[in-house]
């Protein structure tokens, strides 16, 4: 009995065609500045409730708070934000010293109770403001770091075009197994998808689609996925039909002429 014709892969197309590293460059989240509105509003509210003071040390504490709020409002760029982070501890220290000296003045009857209390409150508000700003920076940083640590990986679709492509064959990339558990077809099964069947042999395909969703992969499969798709490069795809006949074709990220077999 004549042996059935073996598989032939004429073309491989990978979607998206770029490596994860290239894709990450294009999809990095918009750079975020921390949201300082809440911190600033609360501090401004406290500041506006303070009575006018004559004592110079109480005034130092209040001015330090006011300067801190202004500095936060002006932090619109990365370098201004750096400046704010450097300035805030200094202003906080100034307010604490102002409050301390206002209390000494109160003891020496050079400041009123209201002035010394207001200086204490200003220093305390600035301590809170400093903490809230640091927290906002930390949250904004966590968002960016999350992407830096593990950028979201794209679902990969591998379309094979050719003849006698078995959906029950063995699949390999760079001679490493590409098991069925890594596939996820439109019916939710761990299997390839026949897009166009062979007229003569319905179990074979002329177009076979393999979909890999990195979010569904276990850690070892994910590591293998990243090995294949993380960086630009050339890879070899192999299909072995159940009768043992093989087809092999190279593909590259990003796509190149090698992905098409020579006629």
């Amino acid at each position: 009995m004549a042996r059935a014709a073996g598989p032939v892969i004429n073309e491989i197309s990978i979607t998206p065609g770029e490596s994860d590293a290239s894709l990450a460059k294009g999809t990095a989240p918009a750079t975020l500045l921390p949201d300082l509105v809440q911190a600033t509003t609360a501090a401004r509210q406290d500041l506006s409730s303070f009575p006018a003071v004559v004592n110079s040390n109480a005034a130092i504490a209040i001015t330090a708070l006011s300067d801190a709020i202004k500095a936060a409002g002006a932090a619109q760029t990365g370098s201004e934000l750096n400046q704010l982070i450097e300035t805030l501890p200094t202003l906080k220290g100034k307010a604490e010293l102002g409050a301390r000296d206002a209390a000494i003045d109160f003891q020496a009857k050079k400041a009123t109770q209201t002035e010394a209390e207001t200086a204490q409150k200003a220093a305390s508000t600035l301590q809170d403001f400093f903490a809230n700003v640091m927290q906002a920076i930390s949250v904004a940083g966590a968002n960016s770091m999350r992407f830096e640590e593990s950028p979201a990986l794209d679902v990969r679709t591998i379309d094979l075009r050719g003849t006698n492509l078995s959906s029950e064959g063995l699949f390999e990339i760079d001679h490493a197994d590409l098991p069925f558990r890594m596939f996820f077809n439109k019916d939710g099964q761990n299997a390839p998808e026949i897009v166009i069947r062979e007229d003569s042999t319905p179990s074979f395909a002329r177009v076979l689609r393999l979909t890999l969703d990195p979010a569904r992969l276990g850690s070892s499969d994910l590591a293998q996925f990243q090995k294949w798709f993380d960086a630009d490069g050339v890879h070899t795809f192999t299909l072995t039909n159940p009768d043992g006949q093989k087809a092999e074709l190279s593909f590259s990220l990003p796509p190149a002429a090698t992905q098409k077999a020579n006629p």
Partner: protein
Amino acid sequence: MNDLQKATCAAIVNIFETGRVRGDYGAIAVLKGDSGHLSYGRSQTTLGSGSLCKLLTQYCQLPNAQFAADLKPFLPRFDRKDFSLDTDTTVCQLLQRAGREDPAMWATQDQFFGENYLDPACRAAESVGITSALGQTVVYDSRVQGGWAKLQARVGPLTARGEQDWVKTYVSVRKAWLQSLARPLPSTVYRVDAFTILMEQGKWDLPLPLAVHGVEITEAALAGDLVVPGTTAKRTLRITTPYLRGSDVTALQRALARNGLLNSADGIYGSFTDTLVRNWQSSKAIQEDGAGPKTMQSLGV
């Protein structure tokens, strides 16, 4: 690290993250990305990673958890990572109140973050030969903020260079890396700068008191710059940075006012309140560092 060094290590990272020695147990934010979404607590457990669900489950199992009954009905939604929780104001308010008012939540978070973040970081540090308290804190901070695995590999093995040299190199590599990243990450180099200062001061064992990024870490601050609302905690009140606040401060201030030392009882133990306390102590010949048991008793607090 001994227990005090571990507490100091956690406090340093808390200061980096929240500007506070004890952190913010009720902090809530929404982080981008599938492993992010709703984040909660002093070291940001997240809905997406499942760590928030684990933390809340642990909390709800405690017999003295004040908000357990209110939070339990939401646990299945946390378990199935229902991202609509990001904007559920009822849940967010409950979490915030539990974090700010319930000592059982503080204890749960301390235990959870110790077991899941700090202890593994110490083990990771030890596995590459870093045994000093400061060195392990650098590793802990890197694991909390991110980038440890990537940068550790760049610096290479500790070998014969010695731990201090390795940690210094790692910190400088980390600084350059943070500066190369997208905004606002370059602004977070204050973390590595703070470590550089501690290394220059030779504080490898994290001796107290320590000043980190403008915040003072003392044993008193580690033990309690938080008090249980509605109760009078037995702590000695004294000037710290930031100032101590709480119901015990208010009770003290009211007692001072009743005894002729007028103040508005704002609940802040700052320089003004401290002056009133000293005046009281001087009038009663009380010798005490801060407002401790003798002062409190004399005022009838």
